[in-house]
């Protein structure tokens, strides 16, 4: 029996070693939070002046590049999608064991205090837990959140994701993927703007919005007023024990105004922070005063890069005002922030030849129509339904491995119309999307060869034009733009193939925009 037990123990240790060192790294989900941790570990810094913690609100609202440039400090954003405070505390606790931190900015919203109980929420907590080494704290938090039966999956990504073995061992996911378009020290930004649907929803919540903004300190009657802030209490305790300054913030978000009762939560949170002696800024309280509007959001809950610059600017001013950090430069603070911001959004415009008369037209007829505020409108019509049809630009230079976005304004000629859009390298390298112009929706997308599509969007402008955009990473030095009318039946990777009864569409060639996003380090 002793022999069996000893051998079993030895066997389990080797098994665990193989799992931990060989399989788990392959089966781990590559997330932004993983990148931010890898990036930070690679920098080999032993101390940080400022870190940002919290959920995706933190991840997408505060730009360390600007803090560092303006305040001459070292900061990093450790915001993590869907992370609840119970996990944030574990991350912070483990983090402070190895790194000295001066100040923590903790982004809080109603959901931060929710206990992860749905499968989706539990899954999101794994993004943070996966980055923690095995420790008693990790064991304690995991045990608190997950059922006993779920623990093997929590601790081993191999066990959790084993049904994706085809992808993880042999597929494209086995290679390390790069983070989102605008990536800087943990900040994951986006240039997206709100859709018509979002805007409609915002209008619907106008009453809640006004109630929130106009009477920020008055509790809403008939709504819940008791909230459990024990998780925040624990954060305060961790920071106190490690001699770290803690600031609580709530990033601006339209989703806050979805519920009439949410104001009470923020009022109580404000009171709790005040009582606990920590500074708290709720950007939603001064939404209009701070200058936030619809153009600063990528969706109902998250800022786009313009919005993040705005939130960052406000926070920099607050940190200086409250003496957390000092501004020592000779230039005026506002000018310094402006210059840091513009250098951060380093989007390079690429100017392909937009003279469509010089483009290749395969079975497509172009007819010039009226002029619009966006430029000259052209009608695009397939002349043949028995072979492929498209319009293609000349090749233009791009940087291999970089991320590009390409957009064009289009409209259906009558009620219905679909646009196929492609950024194409040498076959089969391409990024494809098919847009339903009547409903302003992306119908389908496709990445071919080594090109990797990160996003496609269709946004309806106020005059009915639809801004059709694709984004993605190219693996080529020469690309060209291809587009044309198509229908919803053809697969997105071959939208130009032969098909009958394809509706005519309108486009504005001058609106074609190609941008390269330069990643900041």
């Amino acid at each position, binding site marked *: *029996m002793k*022999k*069996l037990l000893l051998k079993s123990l030895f*066997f389990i240790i*080797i*098994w665990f070693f*193989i*799992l931990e060192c060989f*399989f788990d790294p392959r089966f781990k989900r590559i997330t932004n939070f993983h990148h931010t941790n890898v990036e930070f570990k690679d920098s080999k810094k032993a101390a940080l002046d400022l870190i940002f913690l919290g959920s995706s609100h933190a991840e997408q609202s505060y730009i360390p590049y600007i803090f560092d440039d303006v305040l001459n400090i070292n900061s990093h954003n450790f915001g993590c999608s869907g992370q609840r405070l119970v996990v944030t505390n574990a991350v912070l606790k483990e983090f402070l064991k190895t790194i000295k931190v001066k100040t923590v900015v903790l982004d809080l919203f109603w959901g931060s205090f929710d206990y992860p109980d749905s499968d989706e929420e539990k899954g999101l907590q794994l993004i943070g837990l996966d980055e923690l080494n095995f420790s008693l704290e990790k064991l304690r938090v995991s045990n608190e959140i997950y059922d006993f*039966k*779920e623990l*093997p*999956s929590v601790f081993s990504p*191999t*066990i*959790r994701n*084993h*049904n994706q*073995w*085809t*992808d993880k*061992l*042999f*597929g494209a996911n086995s290679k390390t993927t790069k983070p989102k378009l605008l990536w800087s020290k943990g900040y994951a930004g986006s240039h997206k703007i709100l859709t018509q649907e979002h805007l409609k929803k915002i209008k619907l919540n106008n009453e809640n919005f006004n109630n929130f903004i106009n009477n920020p300190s008055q509790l809403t009657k008939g709504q819940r007023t008791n909230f459990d802030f024990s998780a925040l209490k624990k954060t305060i305790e961790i920071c106190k024990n490690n001699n770290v300054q803690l600031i609580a913030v709530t990033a601006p978000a339209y989703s806050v105004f979805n519920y009439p009762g949410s104001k009470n939560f923020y009022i109580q949170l404000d009171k709790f922070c005040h009582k606990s002696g920590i500074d708290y800024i709720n950007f939603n309280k001064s939404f209009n005063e701070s200058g936030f509007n619809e153009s600063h959001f990528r969706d109902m809950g998250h800022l786009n890069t313009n919005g993040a610059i705005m939130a960052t600017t406000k926070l920099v001013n607050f940190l200086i005002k409250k003496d957390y950090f000092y501004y020592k430069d000779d230039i005026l603070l506002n000018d310094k922030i402006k210059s840091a911001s513009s250098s951060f959004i380093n989007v390079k415009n690429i100017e392909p030849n937009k003279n469509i008369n010089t483009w290749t037209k395969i079975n497509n007829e172009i007819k010039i129509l009226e002029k619009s505020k966006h430029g000259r409108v052209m009608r695009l019509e397939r002349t043949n339904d028995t072979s492929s049809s498209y319009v293609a630009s000349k090749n233009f230079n791009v940087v291999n491995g970089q991320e590009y976005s390409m957009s064009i304004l289009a409209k259906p000629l009558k009620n219905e119309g679909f646009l196929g859009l492609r950024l194409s390298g040498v076959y089969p390298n391409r990024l494809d999307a098919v847009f339903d112009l009547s409903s302003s929706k992306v119908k389908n997308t496709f990445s071919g060869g080594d090109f990797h599509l990160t996003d496609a969007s269709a946004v309806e402008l106020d005059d009915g034009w639809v801004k059709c955009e694709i984004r993605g990473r190219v693996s080529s030095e020469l690309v060209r733009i291809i587009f044309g009318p198509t229908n919803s039946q053809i697969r997105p990777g071959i939208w130009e193939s032969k098909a009958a009864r394809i509706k005519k569409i309108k486009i504005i060639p001058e609106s074609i925009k190609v941008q390269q996003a330069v990643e900041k380090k």
Partner: protein
Amino acid sequence: MLFNSIDFAIFFPITFLLYWSVSRHLVLRNTLILIASYFFYAQWDARFLALIIISSFVDYYVGQNLPTVSDKKRKTLLFVSLAINLGLLFYFKYAGFFVQTFVDAFTIFGQKLNVSTLKIILPVGISFYTFQTLSYTIDIYKGNINPTKNKLAFFSFVAFFPQLVAGPIERASNLLPQFLVVHKFNYKKVKSGLLMMALGFFKKMVIADKAAVIVNQVYNNPSDHGGLHIVFATLLFAFQIYCDFSGYSDIAIGASRTMGFRLMKNFDSPYFSKSITEFWRRWHISLSTWFKDYVYIPLGGNRAVPARVYFNLFLVFVVSGLWHGAAFGFIIWGALHGFIIVLEKHFSKARNQFFAGNRSRLRHIIGIPMTFLTTCFAWVFFRSNSIQDAIQIISNIFKKPTTPVYNSAQEALEIYSLIIFIALLLVFEVAHKRVKILRFLNAQIFIFRWALYFVIIYVLILFGIYGDNQVSEFIYFQF
């Protein structure tokens, strides 16, 4: 509790350690087995433990009294045991089916009967433990064994957790005495038991459950599939059911072996059989021998006129089909096997003459694929959700498929891996017939052996189907 669940991964090592720590004290050991077995069963539904306890009580007391009473009373006692055990089995398994069939029959003749259909939960394993306890009583009645006076041992024998819910259906003469003796810890036996369990998990998690994805896709939508898809899905089902059931038996036999118990062999590479008669000597051996000993022989066996023998054979297989489930598909499946076995018996002399001498090799070349294809054809009725579906599936074999079996390169890779694993299993079975794998392994150096163990474990972890919403019950639980 399922073998392929985290509950069992915790339950089994704990039971194993406790078992060996009390193994020298017979009462303690059997008490532990009984508690563990009841706990194991209660994880599914504690209410139905009552049925196992009733069955155990009835057969224990009938067994005790059988040798001491007059012939007339002996028959009454046997009848009591049969009536209670088969009564419970009939009520829980067949009542709903027969009521529904009765109602349907009247509907065909234009009479509508207002009888509410019975919706009765089928207690897991009832077909297995009922047959096991019945064999004990019948064997005492026949004078083949003596009744045990050790109540604890008998109750443990009925409820022994490794084989409680899906067999092998053990005979009291083999298993019961093992509860009456102390087992000594044997490292080699534990090791071979664990390897046997690993083989069972491989069959279940890597082959059966993976095959189920495609089989279900085709058999649950028979009108969408045709041609090669149906052939492929049916071939896969043949391996699914084999790996599912023999996998369970392997785990049961392996788990018992680690605790010093020896269970009977339940499968012996059945798809290498050269005839359906041989197939039934290799498939679900514990059930076929049960039917042979307790149904076929009492009906007259081989000692009657040929017509009667054929009738007996056919009847046994129809009953065997019904044992598998209360549905016409199972009855047709059993009848098909019975019919072919009757034909084989009738032409056995002619066949033996044909394959005699130089043609003996032909028996393998023709017999194995023919038998396999015949079993596959019969599986269509076994797996189809209804007779109508089975007919549609058979008629669709000659139609062109309209829906793809897989939609992406990833799904294709899953299918290729499944085919590779099935091929590996077949190679293993052929090799195991020639060289005992365990003996071969023991002759290898330590590093080779351990490397192989790690490969097995990681194949299970990476390619197995398990985890939330993925763990599937063993098919034979429903029988």
